[in-house]
């Protein structure tokens, strides 16, 4: 089951995001040059007075066991997955916009909450 995630969404200029110091233990998903989704608690210091920092509950996610995830992705993901760990990647999976976080212990699968039910139907 995909669970709704609670994090911060940060839109700022790319240099500010490159230089930002993220809270310890947080997960930083760089969705675009100017766009970060941050999971974790703590203060964020950014050098961009115009940055947009908003509570973000628009994504849902779930953790998958790596072997099972790769198996599923083999029949649903058209693009080549990153080989290194950890890695973040995003693109169409099973016809939906999906974000993937890979590390040694899990594959974390995220999508817009509005499409979570749809993605679940397309999962094993």
């Amino acid at each position, binding site marked *: 089951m995909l669970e709704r995630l609670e994090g911060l969404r940060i839109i700022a200029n790319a240099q500010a995001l490159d230089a930002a110091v993220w809270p310890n233990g947080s997960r930083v998903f760089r969705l675009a040059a100017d*766009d970060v989704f941050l999971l974790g608690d703590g203060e964020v210091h950014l050098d961009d007075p115009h940055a947009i920092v908003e509570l973000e509950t628009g994504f849902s996610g779930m953790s998958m066991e790596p072997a099972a995830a790769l198996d599923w992705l083999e029949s649903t993901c058209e693009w080549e997955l990153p080989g290194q760990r950890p890695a973040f990647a995003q693109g169409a999976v099973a*016809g939906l916009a999906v974000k993937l976080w890979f590390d040694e212990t899990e594959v974390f699968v995220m999508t817009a909450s509005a499409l979570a039910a749809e993605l679940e139907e397309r999962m094993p």
Partner: protein
Amino acid sequence: MAAFTFDGSSVPFDSGDSVLLALRKAGTIPGGTLCFAGDCPHCVATVDGVSYVRMCQVSCRDGMTVEPHPVGGAPPLPDGTTAHTAPLQIRHCDLVVIGQGESGSAAAAEAIARGRRVITLDSKQGADAIGIYAGLTVLARSQYGLERIHCDDVVVATGAAEIQPVCTGSDLSGIYTARAAEYLLAHGVDLGTVVAVGDPPPGHASVSGQLVRFEGEGRVAAVVTRDWDGTEHTHPCDTAIVGLGLHPRDALFRMARDLGVTVVGDAAIDATIPPPPQAGTICPCANVTADDVKNVWDRGFHEMELMKRATLAGTGTCQGMACLPHLRSLLADLGGTVQPPFTARPVTKQITFGEISAGAHLRAYPRTALDGEHRRLGAEMDRIGGWWRPWTYGDTEGEYWAVRNGVSIGDVSTLGKMIVTGPDSAELLERLYPTRIAGIKPGRSKYVLILDERGYVLDDGLVCRDGEYEWFLTFTSSGATFAEMWVRDWAESWELDVRILNRTMSLGAINVTGPHAKELLERVGLSDPPSYMGHASAQIAGIDCRVFRLSFTGELSFELHHAIADSVELWRALLDAGADLDLRPHGIDALLKLRLEKGHILVGQDSDFDSTPRRLHHEWAVDLSKEFFVGKAATIRTNKAPLNKQLVGLTMDGPAPHEGAVIWSDGDYNGYVTSSTWSPVTEQSVLLGWLHLRNGELPTEATIEERRAIVSPVPFYDPDGGRARA
């Protein structure tokens, strides 16, 4: 012994046999020169409900059902009740080698030795390449199902096919190509008395002279040849073997030549052009004879493509594998030049709908966070503006009155929402919108149109100001995705320093509307509601909200925007708090009625490709004194053209006509209805519609569905807006 059913009888087979081989062993064999290589069309049959399967290409399975292909006809459409499904596998590699004969194996081995990731495909190993597409992507069907292989290079090593004989009697059974005969002999099949022509398989001598015809009743009984001096010789036989040369199986290469695909081995050879056929069937799939080709040629169809289209030769199940060499030969004979083969197109191996759509999905429609709530309340859900939304909770009339007389809530989470900040944010919005933005004070909002460069209305929404550099924009539900591209594109082309965040899917929005809306919200903690067209942050039922005061329904309304994680809690809190106010939610059906009474347009329903603000009576939303905005030049230009039609309000007695109904003036077509509903509160039908001007004037009345309609000012209800501003 294992067996399958053919035409109702049981046929035994040895493990590993193809269906065709098993049939040959059993002595039942279709007519035509069989190739046993998947090239010719003669052995197609219906296998387990799938027609046009070549029996030489499927291995026997115990219990399978094979029906012969109807002679001279087509199989019936299946009913689709078989449970054939296939999974999808997506693979990546450096090189795909198609064909694992000598040249293909060598190409694969060489690449592997160089450390390349190689995937090989071969029909003999159960993996058919279906087509090569841009990407590069190779589509294949294997024992895994459908395979989509993404790669950098492809080597086509599909070999060559043997040329079929074309002469009288070539449709008899008992005729084999040289390779087919060799294959049958290797499998211990007794061919009886054999007569070979052309290049025979090893161990057989061929008769001299040119092949003239085959003789026999159903089965071949003799081969007739002719010497150079015209003498014919009849060679009685049980089996005829023809070795007429090769033509490359290069369709995969030809369809992808310009994608950098290479071809090796026999697939790269120059095609043998056989002697021009004098009689017999050239194209067995479409049943085209040599005489037919000559006849059509004589009537001016000289180009290969025209010949193909006029005779349909090459358009059948083997896609020209059988007929192409002979067509080229005959056209060269008739016209003096050898024409190129016709265009190679996917698919090169036939594939079923079920197989090809493995892993395909229908378009996904997002759901709001309240989707479960709507369903629980028994709402009839519909796809609206790209989302699943509640059309009605079953009592549109009751939902409507709840808004007009009491209080109601509606899920408007699908609204397009966007945050824009940055030093150039005001500049961006000033250029994007046709109205003045700079004057909007923090905490205030303004209704806006979005125009395209041609001055036509793309969308509408609100601009809400939060601070000097902070803005919140709304768009229509169906316009939101496009709006994001639109805003980003312009910001980038103008190189403005802004930050943009689309909040459509992150923020929920609940519209609290009706005369008792304020009372309800007070109960859940809104003590200081914003004034009309204002907005403010507030805690409602303990949830952080941003409250927008505006009105689409015509009643006092507050839109509560909040993180979607809180939508359900907020929705339920409102329902609870309003229970004694007879609070009930309203669906889209009721909402459309309510807004129509107010004359609010729905962009996309009431507007069209050519809707200028002037045609929509929205000149007030355009300020031509601004220095610049997208669509300004076009608006000035179109304003000079005489106005020809406008969106107007209409009222009628009696039931509402259909949306889309034609509007007539003096018996002439004069427009059509875009929105129409019975208005319970004004007790008449109220409509919006396009009306053409006649002699420069809008008619004052019209005929719709044979009844009188009066052109009426909008809003139809509460014209001075007192209720919304209350």
